[in-house]
Protein backbone atom coordinates (compact mmCIF):
# COMPACT_ATOMS: atom_id res chain seq x y z
CA UNK A 1 0.00 0.00 0.00
CA UNK A 2 2.79 2.30 0.96
CA UNK A 3 4.54 1.58 -2.27
CA UNK A 4 1.48 2.31 -4.31
CA UNK A 5 0.91 5.69 -2.66
CA UNK A 6 4.52 6.49 -3.12
CA UNK A 7 4.34 5.59 -6.77
CA UNK A 8 1.23 7.66 -7.18
CA UNK A 9 2.88 10.63 -5.57
CA UNK A 10 5.91 10.21 -7.73
CA UNK A 11 3.73 10.00 -10.77
CA UNK A 12 1.76 13.09 -9.85
CA UNK A 13 4.87 15.04 -9.07
CA UNK A 14 6.39 14.18 -12.37
CA UNK A 15 3.33 14.51 -14.57
CA UNK A 16 1.05 17.02 -12.87
CA UNK A 17 0.85 19.34 -15.85
CA UNK A 18 -0.27 16.74 -18.40
CA UNK A 19 -2.67 15.33 -15.83
CA UNK A 20 -4.32 18.69 -15.38
CA UNK A 21 -4.42 19.19 -19.12
CA UNK A 22 -6.00 15.77 -19.57
CA UNK A 23 -8.66 16.57 -17.04
CA UNK A 24 -9.32 19.87 -18.75
CA UNK A 25 -9.66 18.10 -22.10
CA UNK A 26 -12.14 15.62 -20.75
CA UNK A 27 -14.06 18.39 -19.07
CA UNK A 28 -13.99 21.06 -21.73
CA UNK A 29 -13.94 19.13 -24.95
CA UNK A 30 -17.62 18.14 -24.81
CA UNK A 31 -18.45 21.82 -24.50
CA UNK A 32 -16.21 22.69 -27.44
CA UNK A 33 -17.79 19.92 -29.47
CA UNK A 34 -21.20 21.22 -28.52
CA UNK A 35 -20.29 24.61 -29.90
CA UNK A 36 -18.75 23.10 -33.01
CA UNK A 37 -22.12 21.45 -33.57
CA UNK A 38 -23.86 24.74 -33.02
CA UNK A 39 -21.55 26.49 -35.46
CA UNK A 40 -22.19 23.71 -37.95
CA UNK A 41 -25.91 24.15 -37.59
CA UNK A 42 -25.60 27.88 -37.99
CA UNK A 43 -23.45 27.53 -41.09
CA UNK A 44 -25.84 24.95 -42.47
CA UNK A 45 -28.74 27.26 -41.79
CA UNK A 46 -26.99 30.12 -43.49
CA UNK A 47 -26.27 28.02 -46.56
CA UNK A 48 -29.83 26.81 -46.63
CA UNK A 49 -31.48 30.20 -46.37
CA UNK A 50 -32.77 29.89 -42.85
CA UNK A 51 -31.78 30.89 -39.34
CA UNK A 52 -30.91 27.75 -37.45
CA UNK A 53 -31.30 27.47 -33.69
CA UNK A 54 -32.59 30.76 -32.34
CA UNK A 55 -34.62 29.88 -29.27
CA UNK A 56 -32.26 28.85 -26.52
CA UNK A 57 -30.23 31.81 -25.52
CA UNK A 58 -29.45 34.74 -27.78
CA UNK A 59 -29.04 33.49 -31.34
CA UNK A 60 -29.32 29.99 -29.98
CA UNK A 61 -25.99 30.25 -28.22
CA UNK A 62 -27.10 28.12 -25.31
CA UNK A 63 -28.43 25.41 -27.60
CA UNK A 64 -25.49 23.03 -26.96
CA UNK A 65 -26.16 23.12 -23.25
CA UNK A 66 -29.85 22.51 -23.75
CA UNK A 67 -29.01 19.64 -26.08
CA UNK A 68 -26.61 18.18 -23.58
CA UNK A 69 -29.17 18.33 -20.81
CA UNK A 70 -31.77 16.76 -23.06
CA UNK A 71 -29.43 13.95 -24.04
CA UNK A 72 -28.41 13.25 -20.49
CA UNK A 73 -31.91 12.97 -19.11
CA UNK A 74 -33.24 10.92 -21.99
CA UNK A 75 -34.30 7.37 -21.30
CA UNK A 76 -31.46 4.96 -21.76
CA UNK A 77 -32.69 2.20 -24.00
CA UNK A 78 -30.85 -1.05 -24.49
CA UNK A 79 -32.47 -3.36 -27.04
CA UNK A 80 -33.79 -6.64 -25.75
CA UNK A 81 -31.43 -8.89 -27.66
CA UNK A 82 -28.42 -6.62 -27.53
CA UNK A 83 -25.14 -7.81 -26.14
CA UNK A 84 -25.27 -5.74 -22.96
CA UNK A 85 -21.54 -5.70 -22.20
CA UNK A 86 -20.46 -4.74 -25.69
CA UNK A 87 -23.32 -2.33 -26.06
CA UNK A 88 -22.12 -0.59 -22.95
CA UNK A 89 -18.49 -0.72 -23.92
CA UNK A 90 -18.64 0.39 -27.53
CA UNK A 91 -19.44 4.10 -27.21
CA UNK A 92 -16.99 4.45 -24.37
CA UNK A 93 -14.28 2.88 -26.50
CA UNK A 94 -15.09 5.20 -29.33
CA UNK A 95 -14.90 8.33 -27.27
CA UNK A 96 -11.87 7.17 -25.29
CA UNK A 97 -9.84 6.67 -28.44
CA UNK A 98 -10.81 10.08 -29.75
CA UNK A 99 -9.95 11.86 -26.51
CA UNK A 100 -6.69 9.98 -26.16
CA UNK A 101 -5.64 11.13 -29.60
CA UNK A 102 -6.06 14.74 -28.55
CA UNK A 103 -3.30 14.20 -25.99
CA UNK A 104 -0.72 13.83 -28.72
CA UNK A 105 -1.59 17.08 -30.42
CA UNK A 106 0.14 20.38 -29.95
CA UNK A 107 -1.88 23.55 -30.01
CA UNK A 108 0.90 25.99 -30.47
CA UNK A 109 4.42 25.51 -29.15
CA UNK A 110 3.28 26.09 -25.59
CA UNK A 111 0.30 23.80 -25.37
CA UNK A 112 0.99 20.13 -25.69
CA UNK A 113 0.07 17.43 -23.23
CA UNK A 114 2.39 14.62 -24.21
CA UNK A 115 5.43 16.74 -24.87
CA UNK A 116 8.11 15.67 -27.31
CA UNK A 117 6.81 12.23 -27.97
CA UNK A 118 9.17 10.53 -30.31
CA UNK A 119 6.34 9.02 -32.33
CA UNK A 120 4.04 12.05 -32.03
CA UNK A 121 1.98 12.02 -35.17
CA UNK A 122 1.87 8.23 -35.41
CA UNK A 123 0.45 8.13 -31.91
CA UNK A 124 -2.35 10.46 -32.88
CA UNK A 125 -3.17 8.55 -36.04
CA UNK A 126 -2.91 5.13 -34.45
CA UNK A 127 -4.91 5.87 -31.36
CA UNK A 128 -7.67 7.69 -33.20
CA UNK A 129 -7.96 4.74 -35.55
CA UNK A 130 -8.91 2.59 -32.57
CA UNK A 131 -12.22 4.38 -32.43
CA UNK A 132 -13.35 2.06 -35.16
CA UNK A 133 -13.85 -0.67 -32.58
CA UNK A 134 -16.44 1.45 -30.92
CA UNK A 135 -18.31 1.67 -34.18
CA UNK A 136 -17.98 -1.94 -35.23
CA UNK A 137 -18.73 -3.41 -31.84
CA UNK A 138 -21.58 -0.98 -31.26
CA UNK A 139 -23.13 -1.92 -34.57
CA UNK A 140 -22.74 -5.58 -33.86
CA UNK A 141 -24.02 -5.39 -30.30
CA UNK A 142 -27.21 -3.62 -31.34
CA UNK A 143 -28.38 -6.81 -33.00
CA UNK A 144 -30.04 -4.96 -35.83
CA UNK A 145 -29.50 -5.28 -39.54
CA UNK A 146 -29.15 -1.58 -40.10
CA UNK A 147 -26.58 -1.28 -37.36
CA UNK A 148 -24.60 -4.26 -38.57
CA UNK A 149 -24.49 -3.04 -42.16
CA UNK A 150 -23.48 0.37 -40.91
CA UNK A 151 -20.72 -1.14 -38.79
CA UNK A 152 -19.37 -3.30 -41.58
CA UNK A 153 -19.46 -0.39 -43.98
CA UNK A 154 -17.68 1.74 -41.46
CA UNK A 155 -14.87 -0.68 -40.80
CA UNK A 156 -14.32 -1.39 -44.49
CA UNK A 157 -14.33 2.31 -45.25
CA UNK A 158 -11.96 3.19 -42.45
CA UNK A 159 -9.47 0.47 -43.29
CA UNK A 160 -9.46 1.43 -46.96
CA UNK A 161 -9.02 5.12 -46.47
CA UNK A 162 -6.50 4.80 -43.69
CA UNK A 163 -4.07 3.43 -46.24
CA UNK A 164 -4.43 6.48 -48.45
CA UNK A 165 -4.26 8.82 -45.48
CA UNK A 166 -1.15 7.07 -44.20
CA UNK A 167 0.55 7.39 -47.57
CA UNK A 168 -0.31 11.07 -47.67
CA UNK A 169 1.16 11.48 -44.20
CA UNK A 170 4.33 9.76 -45.36
CA UNK A 171 4.75 12.49 -47.96
CA UNK A 172 4.66 15.17 -45.32
CA UNK A 173 6.95 13.15 -43.06
CA UNK A 174 9.47 12.84 -45.88
CA UNK A 175 9.88 16.59 -45.77
CA UNK A 176 9.85 16.78 -42.00
CA UNK A 177 12.22 13.91 -41.33
CA UNK A 178 10.67 13.31 -37.94
CA UNK A 179 7.56 12.01 -36.30
CA UNK A 180 7.74 14.48 -33.49
CA UNK A 181 5.11 17.17 -33.83
CA UNK A 182 7.33 20.00 -32.68
CA UNK A 183 10.05 18.92 -35.09
CA UNK A 184 7.55 18.73 -37.94
CA UNK A 185 6.46 22.30 -37.42
CA UNK A 186 10.03 23.37 -36.89
CA UNK A 187 10.95 21.77 -40.20
CA UNK A 188 8.29 23.84 -41.90
CA UNK A 189 9.68 26.92 -40.25
CA UNK A 190 13.16 26.04 -41.44
CA UNK A 191 11.98 25.49 -44.97
CA UNK A 192 9.89 28.65 -44.81
CA UNK A 193 7.11 26.94 -46.71
CA UNK A 194 4.22 24.77 -45.69
CA UNK A 195 4.40 21.15 -46.71
CA UNK A 196 0.91 21.45 -48.10
CA UNK A 197 2.34 23.68 -50.80
CA UNK A 198 5.27 21.38 -51.44
CA UNK A 199 3.04 18.32 -51.73
CA UNK A 200 -0.41 19.53 -52.74
CA UNK A 201 -1.44 16.12 -54.01
CA UNK A 202 -0.65 14.56 -50.69
CA UNK A 203 -2.60 17.27 -48.94
CA UNK A 204 -5.56 16.69 -51.22
CA UNK A 205 -5.38 12.95 -50.64
CA UNK A 206 -5.29 13.45 -46.92
CA UNK A 207 -8.17 15.88 -47.11
CA UNK A 208 -10.39 13.39 -48.90
CA UNK A 209 -9.27 10.45 -46.81
CA UNK A 210 -9.77 12.33 -43.57
CA UNK A 211 -13.35 13.14 -44.53
CA UNK A 212 -13.92 9.48 -45.20
CA UNK A 213 -12.25 8.46 -41.97
CA UNK A 214 -14.43 10.69 -39.88
CA UNK A 215 -17.55 9.42 -41.63
CA UNK A 216 -18.52 12.85 -42.83
CA UNK A 217 -20.56 13.64 -45.91
CA UNK A 218 -20.15 12.87 -48.75
CA UNK A 219 -18.68 9.71 -47.25
CA UNK A 220 -21.11 9.35 -44.37
CA UNK A 221 -22.36 5.98 -45.51
CA UNK A 222 -22.08 4.21 -42.16
CA UNK A 223 -24.70 6.55 -40.78
CA UNK A 224 -26.46 7.36 -44.04
CA UNK A 225 -29.81 8.45 -42.80
CA UNK A 226 -31.73 7.79 -45.95
CA UNK A 227 -30.53 4.22 -46.26
CA UNK A 228 -29.56 2.87 -42.89
CA UNK A 229 -31.63 5.06 -40.61
CA UNK A 230 -28.61 6.00 -38.52
CA UNK A 231 -26.23 3.17 -39.30
CA UNK A 232 -24.36 1.84 -36.31
CA UNK A 233 -26.04 4.43 -34.07
CA UNK A 234 -29.56 3.29 -34.87
CA UNK A 235 -30.20 1.59 -31.57
CA UNK A 236 -28.33 4.04 -29.40
CA UNK A 237 -30.03 6.84 -27.61
CA UNK A 238 -29.46 9.43 -24.96
CA UNK A 239 -26.10 9.42 -23.32
CA UNK A 240 -24.56 6.61 -25.35
CA UNK A 241 -25.58 8.27 -28.54
CA UNK A 242 -24.07 11.53 -27.41
CA UNK A 243 -20.81 9.72 -26.71
CA UNK A 244 -20.69 8.61 -30.32
CA UNK A 245 -21.48 12.11 -31.36
CA UNK A 246 -18.71 13.45 -29.17
CA UNK A 247 -16.30 10.94 -30.65
CA UNK A 248 -17.23 11.87 -34.20
CA UNK A 249 -16.63 15.56 -33.70
CA UNK A 250 -13.51 15.00 -31.66
CA UNK A 251 -12.17 12.90 -34.50
CA UNK A 252 -12.92 15.76 -36.82
CA UNK A 253 -10.84 18.04 -34.65
CA UNK A 254 -8.08 15.44 -34.53
CA UNK A 255 -7.80 14.95 -38.29
CA UNK A 256 -8.00 18.69 -38.83
CA UNK A 257 -5.18 19.17 -36.34
CA UNK A 258 -3.05 16.50 -37.97
CA UNK A 259 -3.57 18.09 -41.37
CA UNK A 260 -2.80 21.50 -39.94
CA UNK A 261 0.35 20.29 -38.27
CA UNK A 262 1.69 18.40 -41.22
CA UNK A 263 0.50 20.36 -44.22
CA UNK A 264 -0.59 23.79 -43.12
CA UNK A 265 2.36 24.83 -41.02
CA UNK A 266 0.92 24.07 -37.62
CA UNK A 267 1.06 27.13 -35.43
CA UNK A 268 3.16 29.14 -37.86
CA UNK A 269 1.72 32.18 -39.50
CA UNK A 270 1.63 32.26 -43.30
CA UNK A 271 5.11 32.86 -44.76
CA UNK A 272 6.83 32.31 -41.40
CA UNK A 273 10.34 33.23 -42.61
CA UNK A 274 9.48 36.29 -44.66
CA UNK A 275 10.28 39.13 -42.30
CA UNK A 276 8.74 41.95 -44.32
CA UNK A 277 5.43 40.11 -44.05
CA UNK A 278 5.53 40.11 -40.27
CA UNK A 279 2.66 42.57 -40.22
CA UNK A 280 0.55 39.45 -40.66
CA UNK A 281 1.10 39.07 -36.93
CA UNK A 282 -1.38 41.88 -36.53
CA UNK A 283 -4.08 39.99 -38.37
CA UNK A 284 -5.26 37.98 -35.35
CA UNK A 285 -5.94 40.95 -33.06
CA UNK A 286 -7.47 42.90 -35.94
CA UNK A 287 -9.75 40.00 -36.75
CA UNK A 288 -10.92 39.80 -33.16
CA UNK A 289 -11.44 43.56 -33.06
CA UNK A 290 -13.43 43.30 -36.26
CA UNK A 291 -15.72 40.65 -34.82
CA UNK A 292 -16.07 42.73 -31.66
CA UNK A 293 -17.04 45.81 -33.62
CA UNK A 294 -19.53 43.82 -35.63
CA UNK A 295 -21.11 42.56 -32.42
CA UNK A 296 -21.26 46.12 -31.10
CA UNK A 297 -22.98 47.27 -34.25
CA UNK A 298 -25.51 44.48 -34.00
CA UNK A 299 -26.23 45.19 -30.36
CA UNK A 300 -28.85 47.94 -30.81
CA UNK A 301 -30.70 45.75 -33.31
CA UNK A 302 -31.33 42.98 -30.82
CA UNK A 303 -34.96 42.87 -29.80
CA UNK A 304 -34.57 41.68 -26.24
CA UNK A 305 -32.54 43.27 -23.50
CA UNK A 306 -30.88 39.98 -22.59
CA UNK A 307 -29.71 39.59 -26.14
CA UNK A 308 -28.30 43.09 -26.15
CA UNK A 309 -26.37 42.42 -23.01
CA UNK A 310 -25.18 39.18 -24.45
CA UNK A 311 -23.98 40.77 -27.65
CA UNK A 312 -22.12 43.33 -25.59
CA UNK A 313 -20.54 40.55 -23.61
CA UNK A 314 -19.44 38.77 -26.78
CA UNK A 315 -17.98 42.00 -28.10
CA UNK A 316 -16.14 42.50 -24.84
CA UNK A 317 -14.80 38.97 -25.02
CA UNK A 318 -13.54 39.58 -28.53
CA UNK A 319 -11.79 42.77 -27.44
CA UNK A 320 -10.24 40.97 -24.53
CA UNK A 321 -8.92 38.23 -26.81
CA UNK A 322 -7.62 40.87 -29.18
CA UNK A 323 -5.83 42.51 -26.26
CA UNK A 324 -4.26 39.24 -25.27
CA UNK A 325 -3.18 38.69 -28.85
CA UNK A 326 -1.69 42.12 -29.28
CA UNK A 327 0.00 42.30 -25.89
CA UNK A 328 3.13 40.25 -26.75
CA UNK A 329 3.88 42.62 -29.61
CA UNK A 330 3.54 45.81 -27.64
CA UNK A 331 4.36 44.98 -24.05
CA UNK A 332 7.97 43.86 -23.65
CA UNK A 333 7.23 42.03 -20.43
CA UNK A 334 5.13 39.38 -22.11
CA UNK A 335 7.23 39.20 -25.24
CA UNK A 336 8.34 35.61 -24.53
CA UNK A 337 4.74 34.50 -24.81
CA UNK A 338 4.50 35.82 -28.34
CA UNK A 339 4.92 32.51 -30.13
CA UNK A 340 2.71 30.64 -27.71
CA UNK A 341 -0.25 32.98 -27.91
CA UNK A 342 -0.16 33.79 -31.60
CA UNK A 343 0.74 30.21 -32.41
CA UNK A 344 -2.34 28.96 -30.60
CA UNK A 345 -4.43 31.44 -32.52
CA UNK A 346 -3.08 30.40 -35.89
CA UNK A 347 -3.45 26.75 -35.07
CA UNK A 348 -7.05 27.12 -33.99
CA UNK A 349 -7.74 29.36 -36.95
CA UNK A 350 -6.42 26.81 -39.43
CA UNK A 351 -8.23 23.96 -37.75
CA UNK A 352 -11.44 25.97 -37.92
CA UNK A 353 -10.97 26.60 -41.62
CA UNK A 354 -10.35 22.92 -42.21
CA UNK A 355 -13.50 21.98 -40.29
CA UNK A 356 -15.43 24.68 -42.11
CA UNK A 357 -14.40 23.04 -45.34
CA UNK A 358 -15.80 19.75 -44.03
CA UNK A 359 -19.10 21.42 -43.29
CA UNK A 360 -19.19 23.20 -46.61
CA UNK A 361 -18.78 19.89 -48.42
CA UNK A 362 -21.42 18.28 -46.30
CA UNK A 363 -24.08 20.79 -47.27
CA UNK A 364 -23.16 20.84 -50.91
CA UNK A 365 -22.57 17.32 -52.06
CA UNK A 366 -24.78 14.28 -52.30
CA UNK A 367 -23.64 11.03 -50.80
CA UNK A 368 -21.51 8.40 -52.49
CA UNK A 369 -22.75 4.90 -52.92
CA UNK A 370 -20.76 2.22 -51.17
CA UNK A 371 -19.25 0.65 -54.26
CA UNK A 372 -18.37 4.08 -55.60
CA UNK A 373 -16.78 4.95 -52.30
CA UNK A 374 -14.69 1.79 -52.36
CA UNK A 375 -13.76 2.33 -55.98
CA UNK A 376 -12.71 5.87 -55.22
CA UNK A 377 -10.58 4.66 -52.35
CA UNK A 378 -8.92 1.66 -53.92
CA UNK A 379 -8.80 2.59 -57.58
CA UNK A 380 -8.04 6.24 -57.24
CA UNK A 381 -6.77 7.49 -53.91
CA UNK A 382 -4.48 4.64 -52.95
CA UNK A 383 -2.69 4.40 -56.32
CA UNK A 384 -2.47 8.16 -56.42
CA UNK A 385 -0.99 8.42 -52.95
CA UNK A 386 1.52 5.63 -53.55
CA UNK A 387 2.66 7.20 -56.81
CA UNK A 388 2.83 10.53 -55.08
CA UNK A 389 5.04 9.16 -52.32
CA UNK A 390 7.39 7.76 -54.94
CA UNK A 391 7.50 10.97 -56.93
CA UNK A 392 7.93 13.16 -53.88
CA UNK A 393 10.74 10.90 -52.72
CA UNK A 394 12.46 11.29 -56.08
CA UNK A 395 11.88 15.03 -55.93
CA UNK A 396 13.45 15.10 -52.48
CA UNK A 397 16.54 13.26 -53.71
CA UNK A 398 16.88 15.57 -56.68
CA UNK A 399 16.33 18.55 -54.41
CA UNK A 400 19.09 17.41 -52.04
CA UNK A 401 21.38 16.87 -55.00
CA UNK A 402 20.95 20.46 -56.09
CA UNK A 403 20.89 21.76 -52.51
CA UNK A 404 17.43 23.20 -52.88
CA UNK A 405 15.80 24.64 -49.79
CA UNK A 406 12.50 26.24 -48.93
CA UNK A 407 10.54 27.69 -51.78
CA UNK A 408 13.07 26.54 -54.33
CA UNK A 409 12.14 22.96 -53.45
CA UNK A 410 9.00 23.71 -55.42
CA UNK A 411 11.18 23.40 -58.51
CA UNK A 412 11.38 19.69 -57.99
CA UNK A 413 8.19 18.94 -56.10
CA UNK A 414 5.81 20.76 -58.37
CA UNK A 415 6.75 18.64 -61.41
CA UNK A 416 6.27 15.62 -59.18
CA UNK A 417 2.85 16.85 -58.15
CA UNK A 418 1.92 17.64 -61.72
CA UNK A 419 2.95 14.18 -62.88
CA UNK A 420 0.98 12.67 -60.02
CA UNK A 421 -2.03 14.74 -61.01
CA UNK A 422 -1.76 13.72 -64.63
CA UNK A 423 -1.59 10.09 -63.61
CA UNK A 424 -4.58 10.65 -61.35
CA UNK A 425 -6.59 12.18 -64.16
CA UNK A 426 -5.54 9.31 -66.38
CA UNK A 427 -6.74 6.84 -63.77
CA UNK A 428 -10.03 8.71 -63.55
CA UNK A 429 -10.46 8.70 -67.31
CA UNK A 430 -9.82 4.99 -67.70
CA UNK A 431 -11.98 4.42 -64.67
CA UNK A 432 -14.89 6.10 -66.32
CA UNK A 433 -14.38 4.17 -69.51
CA UNK A 434 -14.20 0.82 -67.84
CA UNK A 435 -16.99 1.54 -65.41
CA UNK A 436 -19.12 -1.54 -65.68
CA UNK A 437 -22.43 -0.82 -67.22
CA UNK A 438 -25.04 -1.90 -64.76
CA UNK A 439 -26.03 -5.23 -66.16
CA UNK A 440 -29.13 -5.95 -64.23
CA UNK A 441 -29.27 -9.51 -65.38
CA UNK A 442 -31.71 -10.17 -62.62
CA UNK A 443 -34.52 -12.57 -63.33
CA UNK A 444 -37.14 -10.83 -65.31
CA UNK A 445 -40.23 -11.53 -63.32
CA UNK A 446 -42.69 -8.98 -62.19
CA UNK A 447 -43.88 -10.95 -59.24
Amino acid at each position, binding site marked *: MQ*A*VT*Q*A*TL*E*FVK*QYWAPLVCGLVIVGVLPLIVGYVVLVERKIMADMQARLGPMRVGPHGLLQPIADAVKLLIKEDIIPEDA*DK*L*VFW*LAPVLSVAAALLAIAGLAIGPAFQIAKD*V*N*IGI*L*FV*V*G*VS*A*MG*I*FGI*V*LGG*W*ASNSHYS*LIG*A*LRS*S*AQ*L*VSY*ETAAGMALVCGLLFAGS*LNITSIVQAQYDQGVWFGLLAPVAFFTYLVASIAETNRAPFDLPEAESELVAGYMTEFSGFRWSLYFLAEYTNMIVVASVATTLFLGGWLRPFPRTTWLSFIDFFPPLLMVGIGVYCLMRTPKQPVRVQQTFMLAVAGLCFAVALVLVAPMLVPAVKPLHDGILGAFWFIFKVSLYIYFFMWLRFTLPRYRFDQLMRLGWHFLIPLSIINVLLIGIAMIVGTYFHLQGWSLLLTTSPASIIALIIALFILATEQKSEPQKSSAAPDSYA
Partner: protein
Amino acid sequence: MLDQVIFYFFAAIAVISAILTVTRRNVVHSAIFLITALLATAGIFLQLRAEFLFIVQIILYVGGIMVLFVFVIMLVNLDVAVRQLRFARQKWVALLISLALAAQVGLMLWSTGKMPGQGVPVLAAVPADKLPLNSEAVAKSLFETYLLPFEIASVLLLVAMIGAVVMAKKRT
Protein backbone atom coordinates in the same frame (compact mmCIF):
# COMPACT_ATOMS: atom_id res chain seq x y z
CA MET B 1 8.79 2.32 -8.22
CA LEU B 2 6.59 3.89 -10.87
CA ASP B 3 8.04 1.45 -13.35
CA GLN B 4 6.96 -1.44 -11.20
CA VAL B 5 3.43 -0.21 -10.76
CA ILE B 6 3.06 0.33 -14.48
CA PHE B 7 4.49 -3.08 -15.27
CA TYR B 8 2.30 -4.94 -12.82
CA PHE B 9 -0.74 -3.02 -13.96
CA PHE B 10 -0.25 -3.89 -17.60
CA ALA B 11 0.92 -7.40 -16.87
CA ALA B 12 -2.16 -8.12 -14.80
CA ILE B 13 -4.43 -6.78 -17.52
CA ALA B 14 -2.59 -8.78 -20.15
CA VAL B 15 -2.80 -12.06 -18.27
CA ILE B 16 -6.42 -11.68 -17.19
CA SER B 17 -7.49 -10.63 -20.65
CA ALA B 18 -5.58 -13.50 -22.19
CA ILE B 19 -7.31 -15.97 -19.91
CA LEU B 20 -10.68 -14.47 -20.74
CA THR B 21 -9.81 -14.59 -24.42
CA VAL B 22 -9.47 -18.32 -24.45
CA THR B 23 -12.34 -19.02 -22.11
CA ARG B 24 -15.17 -16.78 -23.31
CA ARG B 25 -17.93 -18.55 -25.15
CA ASN B 26 -18.82 -15.56 -27.29
CA VAL B 27 -16.24 -14.99 -29.98
CA VAL B 28 -16.77 -11.26 -30.05
CA HIS B 29 -16.07 -11.09 -26.34
CA SER B 30 -12.95 -13.13 -26.95
CA ALA B 31 -11.87 -10.64 -29.55
CA ILE B 32 -12.49 -7.72 -27.22
CA PHE B 33 -10.38 -9.33 -24.50
CA LEU B 34 -7.67 -10.11 -27.00
CA ILE B 35 -7.66 -6.45 -27.95
CA THR B 36 -7.27 -5.57 -24.30
CA ALA B 37 -4.43 -8.05 -23.96
CA LEU B 38 -2.69 -6.60 -26.99
CA LEU B 39 -3.12 -3.07 -25.71
CA ALA B 40 -1.67 -4.10 -22.37
CA THR B 41 1.28 -5.63 -24.20
CA ALA B 42 1.67 -2.35 -26.03
CA GLY B 43 1.77 -0.66 -22.65
CA ILE B 44 4.57 -2.98 -21.62
CA PHE B 45 6.44 -2.10 -24.78
CA LEU B 46 6.09 1.53 -23.83
CA GLN B 47 7.38 0.76 -20.38
CA LEU B 48 10.34 -0.87 -22.08
CA ARG B 49 10.89 2.35 -24.05
CA ALA B 50 10.10 0.71 -27.34
CA GLU B 51 7.90 3.55 -28.48
CA PHE B 52 7.94 2.69 -32.10
CA LEU B 53 6.92 -0.86 -31.43
CA PHE B 54 4.23 0.42 -29.10
CA ILE B 55 2.58 2.40 -31.85
CA VAL B 56 3.14 -0.34 -34.41
CA GLN B 57 1.44 -2.74 -32.06
CA ILE B 58 -1.52 -0.39 -31.77
CA ILE B 59 -1.80 0.52 -35.44
CA LEU B 60 -1.05 -2.87 -36.93
CA TYR B 61 -2.22 -5.33 -34.35
CA VAL B 62 -5.12 -3.57 -32.79
CA GLY B 63 -6.11 -1.30 -35.66
CA GLY B 64 -5.41 -3.75 -38.45
CA ILE B 65 -5.39 -7.39 -37.55
CA MET B 66 -8.06 -7.21 -34.89
CA VAL B 67 -10.36 -5.23 -37.15
CA LEU B 68 -9.97 -8.04 -39.61
CA PHE B 69 -10.85 -10.53 -36.91
CA VAL B 70 -13.91 -8.65 -35.81
CA PHE B 71 -14.96 -8.23 -39.41
CA VAL B 72 -14.73 -11.95 -40.07
CA ILE B 73 -16.50 -12.80 -36.85
CA MET B 74 -19.40 -10.68 -38.00
CA LEU B 75 -19.40 -12.23 -41.43
CA VAL B 76 -19.63 -15.80 -40.20
CA ASN B 77 -22.81 -16.68 -38.47
CA LEU B 78 -22.14 -16.31 -34.82
CA ASP B 79 -25.39 -17.54 -33.38
CA VAL B 80 -24.57 -21.08 -34.31
CA ALA B 81 -21.13 -20.98 -32.83
CA VAL B 82 -22.27 -19.56 -29.52
CA ARG B 83 -24.42 -22.53 -28.74
CA GLN B 84 -21.66 -25.03 -29.50
CA LEU B 85 -19.47 -26.82 -27.03
CA ARG B 86 -16.69 -24.49 -26.08
CA PHE B 87 -13.78 -26.85 -25.68
CA ALA B 88 -12.67 -29.78 -27.70
CA ARG B 89 -12.62 -33.22 -26.17
CA GLN B 90 -8.86 -33.35 -25.71
CA LYS B 91 -8.91 -30.59 -23.16
CA TRP B 92 -7.43 -32.62 -20.32
CA VAL B 93 -4.66 -33.87 -22.48
CA ALA B 94 -4.03 -30.36 -23.67
CA LEU B 95 -4.00 -29.03 -20.18
CA LEU B 96 -1.46 -31.63 -19.23
CA ILE B 97 0.76 -30.79 -22.15
CA SER B 98 0.71 -27.10 -21.43
CA LEU B 99 1.35 -27.67 -17.75
CA ALA B 100 4.33 -29.79 -18.66
CA LEU B 101 5.52 -27.02 -20.92
CA ALA B 102 5.07 -24.47 -18.18
CA ALA B 103 6.97 -26.61 -15.74
CA GLN B 104 9.77 -27.10 -18.19
CA VAL B 105 10.23 -23.44 -18.97
CA GLY B 106 9.74 -22.47 -15.36
CA LEU B 107 12.39 -24.93 -14.30
CA MET B 108 14.75 -23.52 -16.84
CA LEU B 109 14.12 -20.00 -15.62
CA TRP B 110 14.57 -21.13 -12.06
CA SER B 111 17.78 -22.91 -12.74
CA THR B 112 19.32 -19.91 -14.46
CA GLY B 113 18.27 -17.77 -11.52
CA LYS B 114 16.26 -15.35 -13.54
CA MET B 115 13.07 -15.94 -11.66
CA PRO B 116 11.89 -12.75 -9.95
CA GLY B 117 12.61 -12.58 -6.30
CA GLN B 118 15.58 -14.94 -6.41
CA GLY B 119 17.92 -12.46 -4.92
CA VAL B 120 20.47 -13.28 -7.58
CA PRO B 121 21.88 -10.07 -9.07
CA VAL B 122 20.58 -9.69 -12.53
CA LEU B 123 22.06 -7.99 -15.51
CA ALA B 124 21.41 -4.26 -15.27
CA ALA B 125 19.67 -2.68 -18.22
CA VAL B 126 21.23 0.10 -20.24
CA PRO B 127 20.23 3.38 -18.59
CA ALA B 128 17.27 5.04 -20.21
CA ASP B 129 19.03 8.25 -21.16
CA LYS B 130 21.69 6.37 -23.04
CA LEU B 131 19.21 4.79 -25.41
CA PRO B 132 19.16 6.21 -28.91
CA LEU B 133 16.00 7.86 -30.21
CA ASN B 134 13.81 4.87 -30.62
CA SER B 135 12.16 5.24 -34.01
CA GLU B 136 15.36 6.44 -35.63
CA ALA B 137 17.31 3.54 -34.21
CA VAL B 138 14.71 1.02 -35.34
CA ALA B 139 14.67 2.53 -38.80
CA LYS B 140 18.42 2.45 -39.07
CA SER B 141 18.61 -1.13 -37.96
CA LEU B 142 15.73 -2.12 -40.19
CA PHE B 143 16.98 -0.53 -43.36
CA GLU B 144 20.67 -1.18 -42.93
CA THR B 145 21.34 -4.34 -41.00
CA TYR B 146 18.12 -6.14 -41.73
CA LEU B 147 17.27 -4.88 -45.19
CA LEU B 148 17.05 -8.34 -46.72
CA PRO B 149 14.74 -9.75 -44.06
CA PHE B 150 12.68 -6.61 -44.43
CA GLU B 151 12.25 -7.23 -48.14
CA ILE B 152 11.46 -10.87 -47.52
CA ALA B 153 8.83 -9.84 -45.01
CA SER B 154 7.25 -7.51 -47.53
CA VAL B 155 7.16 -10.33 -50.09
CA LEU B 156 5.58 -12.50 -47.45
CA LEU B 157 2.91 -9.88 -46.87
CA LEU B 158 2.29 -9.61 -50.59
CA VAL B 159 1.91 -13.36 -50.89
CA ALA B 160 -0.39 -13.40 -47.90
CA MET B 161 -2.48 -10.62 -49.41
CA ILE B 162 -2.90 -12.43 -52.69
CA GLY B 163 -3.58 -15.66 -50.86
CA ALA B 164 -6.23 -14.03 -48.71
CA VAL B 165 -7.90 -12.46 -51.72
CA VAL B 166 -7.96 -15.73 -53.62
CA MET B 167 -9.20 -17.58 -50.59
CA ALA B 168 -12.02 -15.25 -49.69
CA LYS B 169 -13.14 -14.57 -53.22
CA LYS B 170 -16.46 -15.97 -54.19
CA ARG B 171 -16.24 -18.70 -56.72
CA THR B 172 -18.59 -17.89 -59.49
